[in-house]
């Protein structure tokens, strides 16, 4: 949408060693993967989406999943170098790879770095042994800390994820764990409240009341504001609902999403957005890995769907994504909505012609969006 919002490439690797019980992402556990076939499919797709996007300055590449730290370093390096050749790489191009903190994966960090990855985002999820088990993670706290050390000595930029508002977690428990995390953190942290999604193992258990000890609404609200207060005091303020960074250390790639920039996507189930001739285009790849692979091999395209989003839909998306950011959205974007009384109720505020959520409004963003857009 906005030209200055940047342009990125998203690469989806759909495989994991195990499916986490809370995860509703497009991830699959398989016994063996033909890395060569997959690499060639990704490279085929790269050339095609380059034709679609035209020449652009490429600000970011993001390897997400699934568990992209299960990709062979060779595949990652080839995708990066091909992309560098197809688009014009920005001087500060961010190349992120999501990784799990097991010793096996940490062993590949060096090779990823040599292939061009300059930022990793590590799925630590918890610094408590029992909680890692409950979350179905395959690593221990020690392994996670070790992997994190290797990563920070290998990559210029390192972030990690934690999940909070877990079963039986108290406010004090979280406060202590968050302090430990902040002491580890380099310049970026993602802190997600546990969300029980339908269709996941947690969702099934929750439906039959077999997921006890989840926080009440009040406790999760308290945890949310505590998180925002503590991170801010520590110098890692929230720049988005669940993302915290030192000034200037925000994820370039994710900002493209929240600022409604353009991005091309390759890999099973990946979604892209392109602004072409003033129209906002939504692209969707086949989500089943086998289907995507054979579609790419047979038709030279992994797209299941490609549609124009109406200007109204594009505006909805821009507001919905933009208000997640602490910087908010340009005020004129909300003209004609019921923004006035949300401002009067101290849920939104205007600062230098941008409208953003207040600390009171931030944890109520969905309700605010319903008020504005539904």
């Amino acid at each position, binding site marked *: 949408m906005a030209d200055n919002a940047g342009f990125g490439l998203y690469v989806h690797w759909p495989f994991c060693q195990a499916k986490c019980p809370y995860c509703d992402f497009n991830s699959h556990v398989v016994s063996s993967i033909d890395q060569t076939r997959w690499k060639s499919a990704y490279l085929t797709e790269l050339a095609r989406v380059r034709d679609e996007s035209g020449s652009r300055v490429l600000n970011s590449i993001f390897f997400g999943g699934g568990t992209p730290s299960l990709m062979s370093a060779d595949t990652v390096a080839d995708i990066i170098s091909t992309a560098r050749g197809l688009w014009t790489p920005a001087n500060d191009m961010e190349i992120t790879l999501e990784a799990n903190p097991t010793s096996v994966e940490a062993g590949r960090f060096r090779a990823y770095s040599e292939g061009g990855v300059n930022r990793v985002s590590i799925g630590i999820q918890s610094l408590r042994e029992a909680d890692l088990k409950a979350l179905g993670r395959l690593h221990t706290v020690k392994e996670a800390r070790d992997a994190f050390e290797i990563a920070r000595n290998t990559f210029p930029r390192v972030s990690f994820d934690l999940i909070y508002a877990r079963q039986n977690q108290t406010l004090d428990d979280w406060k202590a764990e968050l302090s430990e995390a902040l002491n580890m953190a380099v310049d970026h942290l993602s802190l997600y409240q546990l*969300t029980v999604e339908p269709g996941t193992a947690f969702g099934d258990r929750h439906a039959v009341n077999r997921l006890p000890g989840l926080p009440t609404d009040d406790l999760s609200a308290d945890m949310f504001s505590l998180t925002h207060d503590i991170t801010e005091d520590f110098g890692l303020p929230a720049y988005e609902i669940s993302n915290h960074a030192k000034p200037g250390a925000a994820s370039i790639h994710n900002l493209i999403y929240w600022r409604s920039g353009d991005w091309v996507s390759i890999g099973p189930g990946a979604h892209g957005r392109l602004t072409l001739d003033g129209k906002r285009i939504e692209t969707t790849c086949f989500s089943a890995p086998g289907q995507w692979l054979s579609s790419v091999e047979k038709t030279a395209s992994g797209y299941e769907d490609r549609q124009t989003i109406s200007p109204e839909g594009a505006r909805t998306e821009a507001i919905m994504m933009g208000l997640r950011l602490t910087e908010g959205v340009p005020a004129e974007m909300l003209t004609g909505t019921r923004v006035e009384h949300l401002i009067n109720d101290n849920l939104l505020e205007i600062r230098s012609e941008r409208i953003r959520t207040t600390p009171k409004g931030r944890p109520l963003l969905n309700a605010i969006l319903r008020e504005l857009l539904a």
Partner: protein
Amino acid sequence: MTDLTHIRNFSIVAHIDHGKSTLADRLIQSTGTVKDRDMQAQLLDSMDIERERGITIKANTVRIEYPAKDGETYILNLIDTPGHVDFAYEVSRSMQAVEGSLLVVDASQGVEAQTLANVYQAIDADHEIVPVLNKIDLPAADVDRVAEQIEDVIGIDATDAVQISAKTGIGIPDVLEAIVTRLPSPKGDITAPLKAMLVDSWYDAYLGVVVMIRVIDGTIKKGDQILMMQTNAKYKIDKLAVLKPQMVDIPELGPGEIGILTASIKQVRDTRVGDTITHERKQTAQALPGFKPAQPVVFCGLFPVDNAQFEDLREAIDKLALNDASFSFEMETSAALGFGFRCGFLGLLHLEVIRDRIEREYDIDLITTAPSVIYNVYMRDGSTLELHNPADMPDMTHVDHIEEPRIKATILVPDEYLGDVLKLCQDRRGIQVDLTYAGSRAMAVYDLPLNEVVFDFYDRLKSVTKGYASFDYQMTGYREDFLVKMQILVNDEPVDALSMMVHRDRADMRGRAMCEKLKDLIPRHMFKIPIQAAIGGRVIARETLSALRKDVTAKCYGGDASRKRKLLDKQKAGKKKMRQFGKVEIPQEAFINALKMDG
């Protein structure tokens, strides 16, 4: 034209589920009136809602030709009467149109309150009554006990009761013979001026208004000029037919016969059940007795959830009213709900049927306001006011006193639930009139205010008795009581759709219950919402709906945008089912559910 001695006109009296419709189907089928392959279960109950609820709303009729054992062929006219108290007047007219009744009682269940009410109407109409014990094939059937109960409770001889199973067909020939041999033939004078009763009328998409008649005296032919004596309207008969149950044209109908006519009548509203039809030129001297105009007793507002559908609602109501003279309506505006209609109904079932039909057949989501009865408000200046809508309640300082309608309710219930039933009646301000036993069943008769029954009494009764109680009522008149208007305020704004008239002694309890209910029914908002019940300026109950504190999606990246956008679009559609009161959104179903009482 059939000779009087070869005609038998009858109705079937039964409780819901005791097999009235199945028996009717069997009679039709076994006489070959309808071919087996055209037979659809429960042929006479035609409307979807009638089938679903297992009740008959409009009278239906069928003419059966039956070759009896005496070698003669008889014409049997069955009028299937409405089976619900809301339609008591219609039932009484149908009863007047026939000479006998089959009293069908489920041999495994026994006599129910509704059976009683209808059988008394049959007795009032001087019917010969043939008891029929149905479902004798069920293991739980107890023929002797039920026959005894019929004699004890109803006071008719059940020694010759016909024993049948309508489901399997056992005993059906005996029923047909009993109709011919035990029911009287109609009386009438073929030479007298035409006198026919308007039994029922309905709208047919092809024929327009169809009128069902029973000829008493004289004859009626296609092309005749007729006069409806109550409305004084004149028509020329376009079509004369009998129902088998499909229409078959007939040149002429004579005394004792039942048929239908069409006469370019514009709307069903132009016809009056119970009216007398005669020839315009040669009129009968005296109209039939017992005519009563339809009188709505329950009123409520119907508003479209989506204001934009007001015109659709008007059209739907206009169309339904064409076919239902007993349903009244006028436009109403509400500060909170916008434009809608204040509608009058014969009773709660009638209300529900009309509401369901609007929602289903016309696809309009409705908000139904608190049902109200008609109160007589006596003002200090000597004037009186008929109050249909609590919103119109004058300032109490100008009111001298208020009278409310009362009913006589008859409840039949197995012993073990009697305590709960008495408590329910007591809680609803009932006064016990009678309490008697028939076997292991008790019959409680209560004098109750209609406004306590109007909403969910029947649901509560079914629930406290696990469905074993049966209930019937009739209006008895008006009585003064200490009634007040209770308002509900949501976020300090009065919600007029929830205003109601209530007895002062019950107001605190009802107010509390409503506030608690609404607290559960209104979703949390981003601010706290006080919910109050008030009489005049005085708050009698209060709840606070706490503010929503957290509702935010933890993860939302590029791949989530489409799904989240579509979710917002869906919520936009859901929002159309909410109504905005000041800053508060109230879901449609909250209006009706808030009124339901748990005790």
